[in-house]
């Protein structure tokens, strides 16, 4: 038995993943356990969970695979300071202690924290990203593109995968980075970096790309998709802030988080999205010309840009696109472990990632004991049939349902294991959800989940399924009025499809809802409030419901009505943040 643990940490979205004989048995982000969004710390809780799920101890690991080469990254950091001396002092002062304490001592930190004496393999960051997508994809061979903020030196890379081997050919180097451009604008628009980039994507359809030419002044986009920045518009290579004074002169003052989002902000977001898509499609067309492969795997934080993803097949010759649900750094833990098992150890691939349900689950007995111990008033369903019928009925009657079933998702999307479900056909549902639970910016859309067999009736989509909610597609014109709460301002939706085989209870609720409403679509949003990670345990779920306006919690075989239970001292209004 070859057990390999993959680890990613110390930058953002720390995570761990366990592969046993080539099969991914567990993967989770540390934030779900520590309740600290995008937790950067050593993922001890996630590792403990993975080992427990795999039924092993750290001594039974054949290898630990780490998702980057720390010294190469440190070399880049030093280069920044050598180049930018003396202007980079504050950033040096802030960053160096963490490097000396942890980041430069990764082997000893791992060995000490895990009481592990075996070998540690260090996989280049973009190679780990590439592996996280290709090695668990359905393809025997595929072209590969990785794009993120920055790894060691690379900010993007491309190559191809064949069977269990990956070859990367070229890379873009820091400071030219699509991810960092997106983050710079995120910061300029008053949102948090490495957290709220997806909000800018959601904001973009409200605007017109009238600042596109200004972006073209900053970013030289070559014919092959490579980019070259005018760095006088950026500060991130030597400061803790991202847009420079020149950027502010060009685009106006940095928006304060409490300030209103104006049409100008929306236009900037639209312009950014336009140039981002242009870069991605040019990169992909170049990649196709180099590889002539029809299958494509993408990874890295920019691969979470679902708006661009949904347009790939229309704008490039690629026929099939696959993206792993935890496409950003969390997924690189999976990539590092898969690369170690399949490529370094030359084992054939035998795992295809068809599900993101790789996190913790809780038994019926555990949940009942929790409910009894806390004296929570609940109803126990006698059968799955009665559960799905009642849940669908509650949703049809415009209740907001917390849905907690089975293993937690790996990656940033709630896919029917830790979700909030509601009535997509109610035009007020977006406001209801925002008032009752999410407290989020009004411009942000809610996502639809649809039964797989109905997807072509509702969406203009070029494939039969989208289980990971990573692609945005237009709703068919005539269907938009039927499900107003999940149609974005441009008529699109970031859909998830599901089927009986993928998640039977989730699927059956949708079909039961269809019997009542005639619509096989629900609103599916993550089970959390703004600023909190998605819930992990029954306690997290119960607390989230009691602190918000979620009406019911359907957890395993149990139904809990919020109004039946005393409200805990847990004020979601205080916790909700960016």
């Amino acid at each position, binding site marked *: 038995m070859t057990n390999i643990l993959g680890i990613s940490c110390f930058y953002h979205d720390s995570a761990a993943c366990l592969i046993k004989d080539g099969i991914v048995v567990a993967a989770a982000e540390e934030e779900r356990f520590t309740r600290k969004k995008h937790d950067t710390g050593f993922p001890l809780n996630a590792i403990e969970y993975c080992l427990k799920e795999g039924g092993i101890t750290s001594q039974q690991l054949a290898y630990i695979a780490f998702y980057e080469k720390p010294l190469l990254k440190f070399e880049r950091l030093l280069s920044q300071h050598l180049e930018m001396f*003396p202007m980079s002092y504050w950033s040096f002062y802030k960053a160096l202690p963490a490097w000396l304490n942890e980041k430069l001592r990764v082997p000893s930190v791992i060995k000490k924290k895990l009481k592990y004496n075996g070998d540690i393999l260090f996989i280049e960051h973009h190679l780990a990203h590439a592996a996280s997508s290709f090695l668990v994809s359905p393809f025997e061979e595929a072209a590969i593109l990785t794009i993120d903020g920055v790894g060691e030196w690379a900010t993007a890379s491309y190559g191809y995968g064949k069977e269990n081997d990956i070859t*990367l050919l070229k890379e873009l180097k820091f400071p030219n980075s699509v991810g960092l451009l997106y983050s710079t604008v995120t910061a300029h628009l008053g949102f948090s970096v490495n957290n709220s980039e997806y909000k800018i994507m959601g904001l973009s359809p409200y605007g017109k790309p009238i600042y596109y030419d200004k972006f073209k002044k900053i970013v030289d986009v070559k014919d092959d998709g490579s980019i070259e920045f005018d760095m006088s518009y950026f500060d991130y290579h030597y400061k803790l802030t991202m847009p420079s004074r020149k950027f502010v002169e060009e685009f106006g003052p940095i928006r304060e988080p409490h300030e209103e989002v104006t049409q100008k902000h929306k236009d900037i977001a639209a312009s950014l999205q336009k140039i981002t898509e242009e870069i991605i499609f040019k990169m992909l067309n170049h990649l196709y010309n180099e590889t002539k492969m029809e299958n494509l795997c993408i990874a890295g934080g920019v691969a979470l840009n679902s708006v661009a993803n949904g347009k790939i097949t229309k704008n490039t010759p690629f026929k099939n696109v696959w993206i792993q649900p935890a496409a950003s750094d969390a997924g690189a833990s999976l990539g590092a472990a898969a690369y170690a098992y399949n490529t370094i150890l030359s084992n054939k691939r035998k795992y295809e990632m068809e599900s993101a349900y790789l996190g913790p689950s809780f038994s019926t007995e555990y949940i009942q004991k929790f409910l009894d111990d806390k004296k929570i008033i609940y109803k126990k369903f006698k059968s799955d049939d009665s559960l799905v019928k009642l849940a669908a009925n509650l949703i049809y009657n415009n209740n907001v349902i917390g849905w907690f079933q089975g293993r937690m998702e790996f990656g940033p999307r709630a896919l029917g294991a830790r979700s909030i479900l509601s009535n997509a056909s109610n035009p007020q549902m977006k406001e209801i959800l925002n008032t009752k639970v999410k407290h989020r910016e009004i411009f942000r859309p809610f996502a639809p989940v649809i039964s797989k067999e109905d997807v072509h009736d509702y969406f203009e989509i070029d494939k039969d399924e989208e289980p990971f909610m990573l692609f945005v597609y237009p709703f068919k014109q005539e269907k938009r009025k039927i499900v107003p709460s999940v149609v974005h301002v441009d008529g699109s939706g970031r859909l998830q499809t599901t089927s009986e085989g993928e998640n039977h209870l989730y699927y059956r609720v949708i079909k039961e809802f269809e019997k009542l409403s005639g619509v096989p679509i629900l609103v599916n949003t993550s089970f959390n409030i703004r600023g909190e990670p998605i819930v992990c345990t029954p306690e997290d779920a119960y607390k989230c419901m009691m602190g918000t306006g979620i009406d019911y919690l359907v957890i395993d075989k149990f139904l809990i009505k919020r109004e039946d239970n005393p409200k805990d001292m847990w004020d979601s209004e205080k916790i909700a943040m960016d």
Partner: protein
Amino acid sequence: MLNKIWNAIKTVLEPIGKVMSGIVNFILLALVYFVAIGLVSIIMKIFGKHFLEIKKQNKKSNWQDHKVTKEPIEKYYRTF
């Protein structure tokens, strides 16, 4: 009783310790930065060496060769 005294001492000393470590850190890091980094940076710049490509090169393509393929396992033990 001893515990209480110890806790009281800790309560007083902890913030002082934090301030002191902040000052020491600041001084040491400033020395490293302005002496080591600074000297190397100035000398290398005199010789025309650049550590980052922050000036536009106006190249036709900015993709850089970086062929990565499978290597012997020993290479993956390295942190560089």
